């Protein structure tokens, strides 16, 4: 079914909102990454267009990137929790489940297993996208246990190092010494070692990054999803600054992300041998498909 579930009957099209019809006609559903991936953002109907996040919010940019990178948007379900991020995620044209505080990974466990029961021969991608508070504080136990159980889905943590939505409280992922609400004298312990915890808990692919390079970020997101399908839990820890709470002027958001990339968010990628095999296989297949398309095009021109 997949694509069919969003495709309206031809005769019905004229009664549907224009936005919807454009999504079906010009959106990334059923398209390749060259046609509708991050490299072409702005040139196709994106899955997230409008969102109510702050101007310059780096998290909003990264969320847009996640949706443009999905290998299978027509068969993807996202789950999230309270926080700024879900304001954008919930407006994407991909099913989104909002449960309770921090329980996204527990819900995803049930969802993923039930999908495998109902559709043993189909690929349904399940991705949790939550902030640092939802993933590492209130949802900590549920996040950890989903990894320990080896649940096959991708966890993406949007680390803005603060509770943006509730007004700037310190989180377990805020840097030591940061003066934030509920840490009025400065946070007295360091960032929780998220990727280390993930590896210890059994994630087979983990990445820590500051997503300044669009192509690289897209590649990582896809790798995490491909590996989760076949091998086990995958985790992306991405720096997505909160320019409001950390007072980063909008025009300096990118520079800040660049600076963090050289400092606390140096690129770190880990994969098990099994994960590596999947990545190599999938990327070789993608490359071959790309070459074949290219050859076809050249042939058509000649």
């Amino acid at each position, binding site marked *: 079914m997949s694509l069919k579930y969003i495709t309206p009957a031809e005769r019905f099209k004229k009664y549907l909102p224009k936005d919807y019809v454009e999504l079906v006609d010009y959106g990334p559903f059923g398209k390749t990454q060259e046609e509708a991936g991050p490299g072409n953002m702005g040139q196709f109907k994106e899955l997230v267009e409008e969102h109510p996040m702050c101007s310059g919010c780096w998290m909003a940019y990264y969320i847009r990137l996640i949706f443009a990178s999905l290998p299978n948007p027509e068969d993807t379900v996202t789950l999230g929790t309270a926080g700024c991020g*879900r304001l954008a995620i919930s407006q994407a044209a991909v099913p989104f489940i909002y449960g309770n505080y921090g329980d996204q990974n527990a819900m995803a466990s049930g969802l993923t297993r039930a999908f495998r029961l109902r559709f043993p021969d189909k690929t349904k991608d399940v991705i949790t996208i939550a902030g640092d508070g939802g993933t590492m504080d209130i949802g900590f136990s549920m996040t950890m*246990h989903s990894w320990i159980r080896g649940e096959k889905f991708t966890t993406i943590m949007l680390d803005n190092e603060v509770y943006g939505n509730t007004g700037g409280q310190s989180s377990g992922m805020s840097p030591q010494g940061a003066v934030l609400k509920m840490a009025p004298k400065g946070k007295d312990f360091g960032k929780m070692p998220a990727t280390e915890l993930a590896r210890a808990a059994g994630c087979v692919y983990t990445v820590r990054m500051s997503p300044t390079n669009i192509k690289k970020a897209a590649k990582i997101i896809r790798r995490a999803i491909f590996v989760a399908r076949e091998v086990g839990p995958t985790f992306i820890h991405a720096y997505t600054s909160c320019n409001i709470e950390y007072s980063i002027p909008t025009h300096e958001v990118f520079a800040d992300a660049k600076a963090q990339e050289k400092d606390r968010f140096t690129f770190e990628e880990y994969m098990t041998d099994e994960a590596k095999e999947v990545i190599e296989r999938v990327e070789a297949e993608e490359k071959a498909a790309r070459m074949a398309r290219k050859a076809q095009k050249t042939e058509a021109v000649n």
Partner: protein
Amino acid sequence: MSPNPEKKLEKTLVDINYLLKEAPREKHFITGAQAMAEAVKRASVDMAIAYPITPQSEVMHLVGDIYAQGHIKEYYRAEEELGTMSAIAGAARAGVRLFTATSGPGLLRGLEAIVSWPGHRVPAVLGILTRVINAPLSIQPDNIEMAYMMHCGAVMLHAENQQDTFDFTLAAFAIAEKVDVYIPVAVATEGFFVTHAKGYVDMTPEDMALTEFDPVAAPVPAMDNETPPARIQRDAPVQKSNFMSYLIHAVWQQEIWDSNKRAMKYIYEYLGGPIEVKNPESEVFLIASGCAAAQAREAWRYAQEAGLSVGLIKVRAIRPFPIDEIRDTVKNAKSIIVPEHNIIGWLCKEVKAAIPNGGIVTEGPRVYGGMTLPVELIMKEIHNSLGLEYDLKL
């Protein structure tokens, strides 16, 4: 025996009417925990998620065993109750039939997720094997936790004994999945008193089970990216603007409580109604649910032997509460006694609110903290109500 989710047993699938009303039955002497698990075995459950707490554990152990035997397709032990209840909510979105159970403190721990189930249209069945909450910690049976469940919109049934536990649990799946209901159904019964004690249960054959879950026959399609038209954002939080937010939330909640009310016709269909009445012409009525109903029944029997004008109303459905049925039955009563297994008297409050002359209701007798309810306490209240002396010897 190793768990084998692939294993499929040969079963005859039948509809709930046949299963509950016509299917042959055989008498077994089993515990309440076994009765609940045996119902789950016959309900074609796709997935069960477990987390231990006394006295519920027995139920989910047995459900684990029946998973290992191939009666259930998927089963796992979750991290704690919030994780369990959230996973149920997640799995429900994928369109499968679900069961879990909990007790007292576990119910409270999972309550944040449970209370969102009706709004999320999760048609799961939740076993509540009641247990003391509050401090000091105790593992004894006491049903105060049901008071916390009463306001979330879920349908709630209260089983008196092992037989009820079997029948109510089986019926719960059918009720939850009706298109005009489609909210969770909780089946409560007293921990230990019922779960760990044996009673006779007339059971349907093991190789006969309920027709399978149909995710398409739902007021909201599963979030499986399969069913047109696309339901892209059913579960997004409603916070776009204050006006829209309150409007949508209010309408949504009204629909949930309407769904709850619509469950009543199925409670009639499958359980013969929300109440059971003995001696409707009596002056004095005992109204009780769950285990207290068993003791009220015993007191009622003593009263019959003594030739006293005493009636009995056993309440099977706590939500929807049988307001009309109770009001109608007690319209000529002079006094009502409500024995309960909790300190606050939630059933008494419900009964008082249901009738125009709440002053005729005697609060109690109540036992709590896991004590058994001596029938003599109920007898004393009956005698008081009739203006008779009673020599209470406990």
